[in-house]
């Protein structure tokens, strides 16, 4: 029963279009506030540009989608949370953020080595009437709490309900696909159960091209990246990797 949901993201396939970012925001009722900037905005899925630092025709660029890495070992945000508002789910391995329990101290944001957590600086708001276009499976967060990727938990709920209605205990893997995975036009994001050795995603995570970010911290993220380009794979090395464009300019 115990699954370890994770991803393998093929960076050679990522064109940096941003479909995953919008699909994520729409699925999870993330607001787009006019006052939000790159520093204060909410992007639980964020595509960032990286380069090899070259000039002219020597320059190479690639894109890397950054989301919660769902660290398996010594999960930093879980360690620092004074509210127990975040926990690693035993059954799925998902690092679950409970915004309703969060008191907004933002220790977790400081602790997260991947900068994958976001703070709600303002009350969420939509233009008049637009709340009717919100996804009913996800509660809207309030001002003053931290949020992040919960691996599209509403979709896991729907899959569980569908399985229960059919009298089954286990969900059909085809029913639980996070929005970003579904949205990717080049099928660069693969999602599956890392604990199942027959799962293609688990197999890909062992490929020689696969790597994880900040591997030396030993947080054992469940989001793997993959590239055939050595300069991209250098992202896994501390301090010597390719330069990542600033998150906010």
């Amino acid at each position, binding site marked *: 029963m115990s699954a370890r949901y994770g991803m393998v993201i*093929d960076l*050679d*396939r990522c*064109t*940096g*279009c*941003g*479909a995953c*970012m*919008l*699909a994520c*925001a*729409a*699925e999870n*009722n*993330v607001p*787009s506030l006019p006052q*939000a*900037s*790159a520093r204060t*905005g*909410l*992007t639980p899925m964020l*595509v*960032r*540009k990286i380069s090899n630092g070259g000039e*002219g*025709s020597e320059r*190479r*660029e*690639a894109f890397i989608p950054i989301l919660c890495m769902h660290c398996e070992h010594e999960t930093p945000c879980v360690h620092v949370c004074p509210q127990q508002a975040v926990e690693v789910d035993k059954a799925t391995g998902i690092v679950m953020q409970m915004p*309703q329990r969060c008191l907004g101290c933002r220790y977790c944001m400081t602790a997260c080595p991947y900068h994958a957590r976001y703070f709600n600086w303002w*009350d*969420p708001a*939509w*233009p*008049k*009437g*637009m*709340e*009717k*276009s*919100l*996804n*009913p*499976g*996800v509660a*809207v967060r*309030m001002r003053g709490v931290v949020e992040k990727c919960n691996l599209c938990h509403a979709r896991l709920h729907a899959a569980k309900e569908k399985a229960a209605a059919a009298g089954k205990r286990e969900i059909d893997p085809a029913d639980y696909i996070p929005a970003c995975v*579904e*949205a990717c*036009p*080049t*099928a*660069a994001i693969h999602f599956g159960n890392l604990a199942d050795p027959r799962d293609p995603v688990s197999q890909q995570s062992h490929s020689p091209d696969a790597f994880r970010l900040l591997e030396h911290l030993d947080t054992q993220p469940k989001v793997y990246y993959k590239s*055939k380009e050595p300069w991209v794979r250098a992202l896994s090395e501390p301090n010597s990797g390719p330069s990542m*464009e*600033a998150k*906010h*300019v």
Partner: protein
Amino acid sequence: MKVTRRDLFVWGAGAAAGMVFSPVPWKLLDDVSIWTQNWPWIPQPPHGPIEVKQSFCTLCPQGCAMKVKMAGGCPVGVAGVSGNPVTRGALCPLAFGVHQLNWHPQRLRAVRHKRVSSSWSEARAAFAKACGEGPIVIVDGRPGSAASSVLASFAEEQKGSYRVALSLETRALLPYEAMVSPVIPASALGYDLERAQTIVSFGAPLLDGWGIPGRFTRLWSERAAGMSEPQLRLIQIEDSLSRTATRAWRWVAIRPGSKNALAAGLARVLVEEHLVSARGPLSALTVSDAALQTNLSESAIRDLARTMVAKPPVLAIAGDERPEIAALNFILGSVGSPGGIVRRSKPTEKYELANAAIPNARAVLIDASVPWDYAPPTDAEIFRFAAWDGGSNRADWLLPAPGFLEEFTDVNSAPTSAVETYGVAPQLTKPMFEIHSAAQFLSAIDSSFTNPETIIHQRCADLFRERAGTVYGQEIMPVAELDSAQKFEAELSKAALWVADAPKSASLLCELKEWPSTSPAESPRNWSAAWAAAVLPPLATKLYRESSLREAPDRRTA
């Protein structure tokens, strides 16, 4: 009995002790904490049964198939349709926010005349008056649809002219119109990307919003991404490291504005080194001239020409209207051959283009499908249909048109598609205020015109009668195996897609008399420029304001 001060304190102590054993403090604590978790001013998503329906996105001419999640009758989410043979489940980034557009603050809710509130009856009267006074021009952005035929026949009836604002992708095919005989309009031509093995893109943003979002990106991700020896070689010729250039098999960095010179130089190498069977015509430019202009070395140009033909079929794609690239395709033998420029459908009429001069028109009616930034080159009275008001626009009349999924309409083959397709987009949401499409507006002025719905029924019946092609719905069904026209139309009205059989032969008679001498200015294109709607979905700010992934959209407005 006298009540003392002491009694009051004792009484208070008793009451305080009593309170502790009453539910008041505990229940209040509980309720207040629940209240803080559910601030009443936080918006609540809609309640109601969840359904997933299918339709097509009608916000740009590509018409991608989409699954729409509905809750209590409101669209709450969008996803691609994986069984669709054209989009193959992919959508552009903006599509994931389109379900919020109907609530956009800039939604056009009422008729406006010179920016002042007006009414439909006044607009109708004004347009009818204009029709009586002089020639009218009707501009359409999506030729070939049922609504288009209403627009075209109204224009003909009024002795006016019907013009078409073509997408940039279709405009890039315009130079081939003159090359093939009999003449085939650009809107009936497409690229056979699926069979090409080498694609040379002259600045076309193939992986960044060019054509149908899913078609080339899926092909590229299956046949090229991350491969050192890909099945599909993508060579991007561009002055800057664009998204497509970063992902291409080869990026050829040239000096800005030198694409024409490079095309001429490549054509010369191909002919001189007998890499192709064609003998010309060629430009007067020598290879060393081309090298000088492009800032590449002569040997680099020769190498590029050899690389291009190393893995045929090879197809050159221009990002804009560029006769030199068409000439290069002619030299390569790619016009009318598998993996090249192919004819998608039966010859249709050639359209008059929207950007041509409009002499002495009394009024111009612009359909909602025409990109918002289109400004007619005239000072006639302008009737502009649009669902959203994108700001500065010198239209005299702004007429609210159906927004997202508010209209029953049909979707034709996407520009650049190699096969003919037909789909029907059902109306999924009820309009919130009085809206009319241009076709409905015209039918109301003169009731002798068939309304678009009847034309759609007619088209379904016609397609069924031909008994050709395949329907891609819940299952894949050849039309020949369907029992009745009703069944065919029922499938299509659930947003299944009809796809024509591939033409038996791709060959086209073509001729190039001389190397083109025109060299139009380069037209840089922003990622959001293909979007016909006046506004972007609010969530798009995730891409450019809440992150630095993309540059802010540049919306040129007239």
